[in-house]
């Protein structure tokens, strides 16, 4: 409970950022907040279930593209609702076809999902609607984007707090520890996973949608950039996907590091990213928080 309150206070503090910072600073805040939400939403599903989702950008891009298509036809709140619904339905379809099976099927399916959606949209735009690339003209300034993202972050904080205290959180803990035990205890495995996956995917879709006015020009190749999926996974893993505040701890420092790296070494960015990723998998398999806990326990045992 106190954790949630502190988090909400921090979010309120960040909301004052636009009054102090210049445009670049606000841009950094937007990036940091979006990746914090992405990593938290990713960990919400993949942390306890250990089903590695490589499809973050599939939902993120879907959100952004929904805005590009609908922004002139509908008022902004309705655009966001449509994006959430589309992301939710997509997650439901993916989840229904893969979550009943072993985790590996889900991973494989998610691996190519972004590429599939990108090619489908490209095909549709080229051969049916005849326009590849769309413009987003909305009267939303960067600070508005930031505030909406912060509101979404507050929702994420409340949802994760609720999950930790509710029956579904308990069920998830059992599933994460041992699926067979969970099934025998009467937990509906597929349904629990499905609910979590849809929830997490809707949040990711909304991040893409809210952030999209920053682009102005949108085409499938831009919004379905696989690096987004990659960054999200590495952030959540570094902080610790099973800890409540792990993703936040991973997202903020890594986002700043990546920002610096991509400016400094634009050509070698993906090589550095990959190496960092491998490093995290080998050295901190359970994340920083778990590693610190282990160290502390070792010290206590020695004392």
């Amino acid at each position, binding site marked *: 409970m106190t954790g949630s309150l502190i988090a909400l206070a921090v979010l309120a503090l960040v909301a004052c950022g636009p009054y102090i910072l210049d445009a670049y600073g606000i841009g950094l805040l937007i990036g940091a907040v979006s990746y914090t939400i992405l990593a938290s939403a990713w960990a919400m599903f993949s942390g306890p279930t250990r089903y590695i989702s490589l499809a973050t950008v599939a939902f993120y891009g879907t959100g952004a593209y929904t805005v590009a298509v609908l922004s002139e036809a509908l008022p902004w709140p309705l655009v966001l609702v449509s994006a959430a619904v589309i992301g939710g339905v997509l997650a439901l379809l993916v989840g229904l*076809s893969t979550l009943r099976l072993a*985790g590996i*099927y889900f991973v494989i399916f998610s691996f190519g999902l972004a*590429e599939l959606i990108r*090619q489908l949209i490209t095909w549709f735009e080229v051969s049916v609607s005849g326009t590849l690339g769309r413009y987003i003209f909305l009267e939303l300034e960067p600070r508005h984007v930031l505030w909406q993202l912060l509101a979404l972050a507050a929702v994420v904080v409340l949802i994760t707090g609720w999950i930790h205290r509710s029956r579904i959180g308990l069920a998830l803990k059992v599933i994460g520890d041992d699926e067979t035990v969970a099934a025998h205890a009467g937990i509906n495995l597929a349904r629990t996973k499905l609910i979590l996956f849809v929830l997490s995917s809707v949040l990711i879709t909304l991040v893409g949608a809210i952030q999209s006015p920053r682009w102005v020009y949108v085409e499938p190749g831009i919004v379905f950039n696989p690096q987004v999926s990659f960054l999200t996974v590495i952030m959540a893993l570094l902080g610790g996907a099973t800890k409540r505040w792990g993703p936040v701890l991973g997202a903020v420092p890594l986002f700043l590091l990546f920002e610096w790296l991509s400016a400094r070494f634009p*050509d070698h960015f993906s090589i550095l990213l990959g190496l960092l990723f491998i490093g995290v998998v080998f050295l901190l398999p359970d994340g920083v928080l778990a590693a610190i806990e282990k160290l502390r326990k070792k010290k206590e045992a020695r004392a």
Partner: protein
Amino acid sequence: MLLSTLVFGLVLGGSYALIAMGLSLQYGIARIMNLAYGEVMICAAFAAMLLFNVAGLSPLLSLVLLVPAGWAISWGIYQVMMRPLVARSGTTGRLEVDSILATFGLLFVVQGVLLVLFGGNFQSYAFLGQGVNVLGTQVALNRLIAFGLSVLIGGGLYLALTHSRWGLALRAVALSPGSAPLVGIEVNRVARAGFALGGALAVAGGVVLSMYQTFSATMGVIYTMKALVIVIMGGVGNLLGALIAGLLLGLIETFVSVYIDPGLTLAATYGLFLVILLWRPQGLFGGAK
């Protein structure tokens, strides 16, 4: 039209089958889900192009050079990267998640190196492009050679696995890694051999494909995806299944691209995958679980 589509589909399917067999070996024997598999393939395609353009070496000759190199490099990757993960996971089943993550990182490293070296454009080289008459349709000679190679390598491997002592050991580990040591099989060595063999097949597939297809530095992911779908379709660890499923996928893709739209081939692959997942997740040729 129908006949030429059929021939093109079979040629493509032959290459797919070869690629998928390698992935099936790596996952079936070494239990490593290698997401960087397609990158190994694309590396081989680039290497074959370089050897052809710079040294004037025919891809048939570079195959002889590159396949052993693919074996050696995959052997090294297993030893350096995968072995510690295998040792760490023990019997906890963590290996699957860890190997997915580690090879996902490797994918970006290799892709980044290829982008720096060759840029993001599509590449190809002109090797034996003249047409030959097959059943009344014109087919480029390079496609025929590619198909012949796929049959030769795939078939040879299948025979080696089913008719030699070495193949028996590989299959034993694939079937039951827990009991293989009881009959005197060193699991670690066999798993490493399986992973290396898979890498060699990826290289063979990459070189064969580069003879008649264009390729780019970022395309590895798509081939990994296709190989994964074929492996699931044929049943994990089932080589003959992978062979048939590979041919099937090549045919379906070619028909979709000729009769519907070339932009929808990946959608066709995915549609097929979805049908398999909903209908027979154990694979087309697997028994009921």
